[in-house]
């Protein structure tokens, strides 16, 4: 049986289990599995158990418990946690402890969730394999020789390995969805602005979005209901009404109009096993009564360029504050302030981070701004319009999450361009600020998970989750771990 949010909540509320026991059990699993998976950067056992006991007290007193009561949650290490290290998996912030909680963390506390640790990632969320972490490489629980994907690789791996029920990731160009696909779990990138970014250490401000990674679609829906909502601390956060997702989950997909962009299947480098698995899912949807049609949505290679220009430009500015002056890494020997900054940054940032900072700085330089950054913004608008065109006639778009299966550690580290190509199905979604979800839809012959991506129009998460839930009911769940009871 899969351990779900509901299962934990009802076990606690019904008095069958103490929260403390449940959390202890999760730490026991972490002890067993973490040495192989390496998904966590920080664990906070004492605080978590203390929190668990306080929830048990609450129940004893008959107080109402929150929507995530007793649910263990792992947090990507780029989301600020008050009093707990938040490193972005970078030497730069190795010892940085934020003095405040991100808005999403406050929301988790408010719903009685239990934070169990911070997860590994690619440094400053730049990467697709977790190999850019300054501290460790996380393994894919389905095959530990392989990468878990990235940048939220740790968050996906710990949920897949059932060391946590839920985790938070961040998605700038696919960083929730791609590792979710690689690890066979459900990863949701909400519409830009639906979840507050306050406290998320920025990579590319206009693309970043926090979202949940869970084992089931229903857990994803519960998580999103908790995480979403306007935040006065984030000017870009959505001011509209908060939707509920659970009630429509069972509604079915009959009559739902789904678009399949034909170009997505002609992509160079799309693994045939992935293509087959997606086609099989499409047939399932048709059997469930959805109307699936082929459409044309040219996947422009230029969009990859637009994405890397915009995200790197914003990153070059966002990461400029790490200068060794106020916090974070400071070089040992220096004479003048310029030297302090230059050496601190040179010594503490990893290769990929430096590559993006240089690319972004160049793109914004005077004389190049129009040719690069401005042009990329124009292309972003065009991409956005293309999707709007499709959503005039369709409710959802179906696509693969990634063109490739989880690859071996070290396989692609020397070829950044090939690594970037792995983002071809996910980056446009961030450029167009759309919501998208990746869910497991099958396995390769070797037993590696395959991810299917559902893309919706702005704020159509309800439809997205409903369609995903229906498919999940058809396919069923599979775990890399032998079953255990709660």
């Amino acid at each position, binding site marked *: 049986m899969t351990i779900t949010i509901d299962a934990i909540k009802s076990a606690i509320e019904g008095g069958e289990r103490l929260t403390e026991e449940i959390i202890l059990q999760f730490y026991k699993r972490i002890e067993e599995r973490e040495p192989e998976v390496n998904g966590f950067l920080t664990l906070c056992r004492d605080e978590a158990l203390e929190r668990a006991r306080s929830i048990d007290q609450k129940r004893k007193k008959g107080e109402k418990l929150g929507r995530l009561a007793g649910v263990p949650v792992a947090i990507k290490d780029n989301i600020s946690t008050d009093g707990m290290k938040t490193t972005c998996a970078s030497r730069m912030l190795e010892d940085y402890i934020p003095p405040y909680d991100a808005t999403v963390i406050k929301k988790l506390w408010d719903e009685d969730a239990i934070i169990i640790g911070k997860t590994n990632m690619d440094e400053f969320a730049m990467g697709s394999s977790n190999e850019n972490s300054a501290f460790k490489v996380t393994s894919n629980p389905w095959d530990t020789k392989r990468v878990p994907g990235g940048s939220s690789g740790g968050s996906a791996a710990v949920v897949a390995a059932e060391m946590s029920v839920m985790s938070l990731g961040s998605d700038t160009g696919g960083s929730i969805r791609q590792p979710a696909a690689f690890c066979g779990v459900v990863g949701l990138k909400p519409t830009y602005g639906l979840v507050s970014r306050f406290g998320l250490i920025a990579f590319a401000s206009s693309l970043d979005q926090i979202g949940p990674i869970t084992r089931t679609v229903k857990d994803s829906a519960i998580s999103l209901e908790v995480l979403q909502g306007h935040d006065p601390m984030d000017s*870009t956060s959505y001011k509209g009404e908060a939707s509920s997702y659970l009630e429509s989950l069972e509604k079915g997909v009959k009559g739902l109009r789904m678009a399949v962009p034909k170009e997505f299947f002609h992509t160079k480098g799309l693994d045939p096993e992935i293509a087959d698995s997606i086609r099989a899912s499409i047939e399932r949807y048709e059997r469930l009564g959805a109307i699936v049609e082929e459409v044309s949505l040219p996947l422009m290679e230029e969009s990859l360029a637009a994405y890397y220009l915009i995200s790197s430009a914003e990153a070059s500015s966002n990461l400029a504050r790490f*200068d060794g002056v*106020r916090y974070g890494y400071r070089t040992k020997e220096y004479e003048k302030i310029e030297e302090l900054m230059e050496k601190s940054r040179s010594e503490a940032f990893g290769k990929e981070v430096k590559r993006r900072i240089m690319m972004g700085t160049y793109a914004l330089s005077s004389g190049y701004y129009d040719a690069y950054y401005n042009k990329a913004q124009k292309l972003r608008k065009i991409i956005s319009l293309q999707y709007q065109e499709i959503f005039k006639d369709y409710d959802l778009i179906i696509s693969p999450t990634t063109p490739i299966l989880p690859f071996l550690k070290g396989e692609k580290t020397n070829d950044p361009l090939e690594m970037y190509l792995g983002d071809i199905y996910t980056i446009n979604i961030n450029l167009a600020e759309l919501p998208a979800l990746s869910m497991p839809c099958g396995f390769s012959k070797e037993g590696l998970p395959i991810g299917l991506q559902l893309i919706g129009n702005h704020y159509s998460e309800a439809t997205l989750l409903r369609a995903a839930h229906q498919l999940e009911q058809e396919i069923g769940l599979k775990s890399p771990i032998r079953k255990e009871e709660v």
Partner: protein
Amino acid sequence: MLWETIIGMEIHAELETKSKIFCSCPTEFGAPPNHHTCPICLGLPGTLPVMNQEVITLAIKAGLALNCEINLYSKMDRKNYFYPDLPKAYQISQYDLPICKDGWIEIDVEGEKKEIRINRIHIEEDAGKLIHLEDEPNSLIDYNRVGVPLIEIVSEADLRSPKEAVAYVKALKAILEYAGISDCRMEQGSLRCDANISVRNHGQKELNSKVEIKNMNSFKELLKAMEKEEKRQLELYQFGEGHKVIQETRRWDSGKGRTIPMRSKEDAHDYRYFPEPDLKPIILQEAMVKEIGDTLPELPHEKTIRFKGDYGLTDKELEILVGDKALATFYEATVAKAGEPKAVANWVLGDLLRLLKEKEIDSYAIPVEPETLGSLIQLVDEGRISGKIAKEVFEEMFYTGKKPLEIIEEKGLKQISGEAELEAIIDKVLASNPQSVEDFRDGKKQALGYLMGQVMKETGGQANPKTAKELLEGKLSS
């Protein structure tokens, strides 16, 4: 050869908001270092800016007060550069779409009026302050000022002399003060000006290389710096051989009395401006702009007209009085108490201004209440003290904050108006100065003045001069 000086000004004014531009920290000046900071203004990782609406309101107000066009669509941009006083390593500012553009103000230089065009006004955040102490091996940083809202007002290069530049800044300062946009305290840095200056042959069309001058913290320094730079450039054009005027930024060193090179054009930053992704564009409604326009209070040129009509002040008096909002406010409050606009003007522009200057007190910190000065003027008016005594009382009021009657009581300065009392003193004076009495009776009228002086001396200046004079004349002619 005739030369012409071309000056354009960039003025930074801190806005009079209670809290900072993107967080709720107070903007108040003078707190202990780093006291008014939070994760947001310190730019800690993960924090986001949220625009203080009052900043938009004040910027619009400034635009309207300076006859600008208000851009109904403007946006914030990032200006990227590394400096320890800038915790995010970028300043949130406005680049290509400022909130206000194309304005003008009128300046008056020795009676000659001239219109100066304003190119733009944009919103931005202030940086922190670096402190270099002699005994500290490291520089220190105070981030209290970081995130204090600023507007930058950029003029066209319409100014033709250092005097015009000063007149422009003075006029601007008065407007910003009157409209409640900025307190414009130059010594605290809430009004800062940079100047771009170049010289060219009269009649020449194109401009020569301009030099930007920074760090001029008072009108006096501004004038000195401009005159010095004007002279430096003129001399280089006229006599320079190996050296030319180059485009650069120079810092005014008031101690040395000269400008010192800071950086040349080649070292200029590439700020890599791009639209701030953390803030939405600023979209305004016409109605909102109008509403803000309706809240604009009386501006300096309007006050000048009213003061001239109501109080009959001279142009010179008006210039000083209206040019200083605090002084003008004090003046009006005093007139309300005492009437006598002329007398009040004499007090305010005379003794009050003199003492303020002597003690280096700013006009917003006048230690005397308008009511107190008003009652002092009334006492003179009613003949209860002489003008001379009043001056003494005023100084005492200025230093101690006491009420005039209190001072008069304490020091026994009350005027002697009682006829019997005065008569006795006059008799005594007449008796001890027979020669002068003789002289007066012989027709030497100036002897009366001498005798009056003796009466005043005898009374320690407390004799009511009018009564004393009448009595004296009566006695002499009897």
